[in-house]
């Protein structure tokens, strides 16, 4: 009996020290995170105005319970390799042991990592100011966010990502007190026509998209250099000239969604109240023609006109096809 006891003690101490080793880094990050936030927080901030963060979960303790429902998957926070374990393996380095976006890597990351305590999310299918749906976060995890340090987590399984969504939600009480917004309805995309593209161009001027995104959509408008995000960090407007993917997806539907929901936490507002759905599609069609290195039906149609052809020619550096012009 005594022997058994000894072996139990040894076994458990081995487990404990292993656990201590595994978890030692989040604990260290907690201290540095605290120091950083103490420095960053302005002294005059009224008490109670910032949502409370919770301490990191000590090793061996259970994570807060929570679930997510994505399609027929149910995500969990507790369990072997479930949400909590995955978060403290892959995510806390940037998003912080407390989920406040103040991880060890955060000072080197721009735009700053998402703060799950504030629970303001960029990529949503819901109107501006509302929580995203669980699917929205799930999709963001899979896709990653271009022009940021958020990589694609396509290498994880769908179950892993569903578990992570469940765990991310436990950082903010907003998920208990508020409901995610109703996803905006997106009417079917009308056929691409020249009229549609031209009307989109009129809207681009009228809605003053160019003030930030620039007259050619290169992200160099007159206000571009002054933009800051909700963390008071400089942020660049999207440059349509490079690439074809957007922060929140790469399809025409995604593009429609971005300006009808806004990109919360950034200067990009929602235009849902000021343009009609059919006009929004016109704007989508026009914006595609600004992506002159991406062969799209919109660009092909635009290039078939003398005006469009001249524009694309003048925008392409030296009028020479380069490698980036070759991808499908």
């Amino acid at each position: 009996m005594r022997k058994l006891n000894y072996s139990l003690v040894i076994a458990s101490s081995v487990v404990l020290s292993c656990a201590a080793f595994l978890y030692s880094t989040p604990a260290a990050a907690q201290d540095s995170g605290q120091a950083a936030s103490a420095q960053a927080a302005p002294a005059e901030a009224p008490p109670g105005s910032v949502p409370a963060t919770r301490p990191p979960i000590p090793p061996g303790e259970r994570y807060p319970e929570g679930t997510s429902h994505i399609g027929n998957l149910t995500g969990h926070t507790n369990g072997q390799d479930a949400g909590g374990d995955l978060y403290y393996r892959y995510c806390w380095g940037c998003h912080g042991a407390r989920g406040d976006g103040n991880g060890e890597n955060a000072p080197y990351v721009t735009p700053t990592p998402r703060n799950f305590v504030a629970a303001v999310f960029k990529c949503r299918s819901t109107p501006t100011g509302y929580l995203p749906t669980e699917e929205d976060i799930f999709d963001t995890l899979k896709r990653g966010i271009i022009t940021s340090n958020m990589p694609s987590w396509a290498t994880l399984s769908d179950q892993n990502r569903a578990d992570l969504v469940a765990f991310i939600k436990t950082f903010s009480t907003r998920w208990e007190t508020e409901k995610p917004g109703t996803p905006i309805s997106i009417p079917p995309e009308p056929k691409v026509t020249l009229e549609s593209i031209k009307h989109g161009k009129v809207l681009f001027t009228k809605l003053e998209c160019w003030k930030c995104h620039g007259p050619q959509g290169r992200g160099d408008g007159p206000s571009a250099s002054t933009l800051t995000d909700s963390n008071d960090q400089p942020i660049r407007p999207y440059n349509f000239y490079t690439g074809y993917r957007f922060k929140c997806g790469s399809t025409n539907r995604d593009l429609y969604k971005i300006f009808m929901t806004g990109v919360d936490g950034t200067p990009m507002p929602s235009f849902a109240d000021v343009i009609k759905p059919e006009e929004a599609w016109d704007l989508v069609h026009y914006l595609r023609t600004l992506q002159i290195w991406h062969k799209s039906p919109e660009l092909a149609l635009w290039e078939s006109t003398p005006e469009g052809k001249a524009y694309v020619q003048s925008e392409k550096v030296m009028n020479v096809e380069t490698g980036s012009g070759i991808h499908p």
Partner: protein
Amino acid sequence: MKPLLMAGVATLAFSALAVAGPTPAGGTVSGKVTYEGTPAKMKPIDMSKEPSCAKMYSTPVLAETVVTGSGNSLENVVVYVSAGAPDDPAPSTAAVFNQKGCRYIPHVLAFQVNQELKIVNEDQTSHNIHPLPKLNREWNKSQPPGTPPISEKYDKAEIFPVKCNVHPWMHGNFAVLKNSHYAVTGDGGSFTLPNLPPGKYTITAWHESYGEQTQDVTISGSETKTVNFVFKAKPY
């Protein structure tokens, strides 16, 4: 000056009524907000990137982070009852926040929890209205010229900045408050909080740059108590 005078008249009328009638007596807290020290000089705003607004001014307008008046008075200070008064239901009138000449009018808008907030764009340019609350929902909406007012409300008490990202000099504040006992100091820095039933209250004065101060006051009957706030000016 005129609204202040009217407020004074209203207070007088109310206290006279309270003395005469059986209605519960209402006390008043009034006072003045001043600063000591030398406030930073406000910089002129360069609106040259927005000609439609720039042409509305013959001389450049100054930033409104700190607005002072004669006798060291401090404007744009929200003075409100932060403790001691019960929460009030939202009034049916809307609080109006106007964008005119690429400035926010008023610079500091105080209104109640769940009160309608109406945001108007009188300019010939697009603005985006981006309030930055921590407790309430953070939304960001575009408002091109000629579009109808935006109607919103906030369900949690909080004071937070609001900005327009397109015009970085546009900066204002929303004060969402729990009860109807509040005032924002104007020219002269004085304020009046009427209709306070007898009791012990905490009065808070908030300024966007100089922070906040509180004072406790006890009201009995229909008396008028004087509470003055003195903020220390930041030299930068």
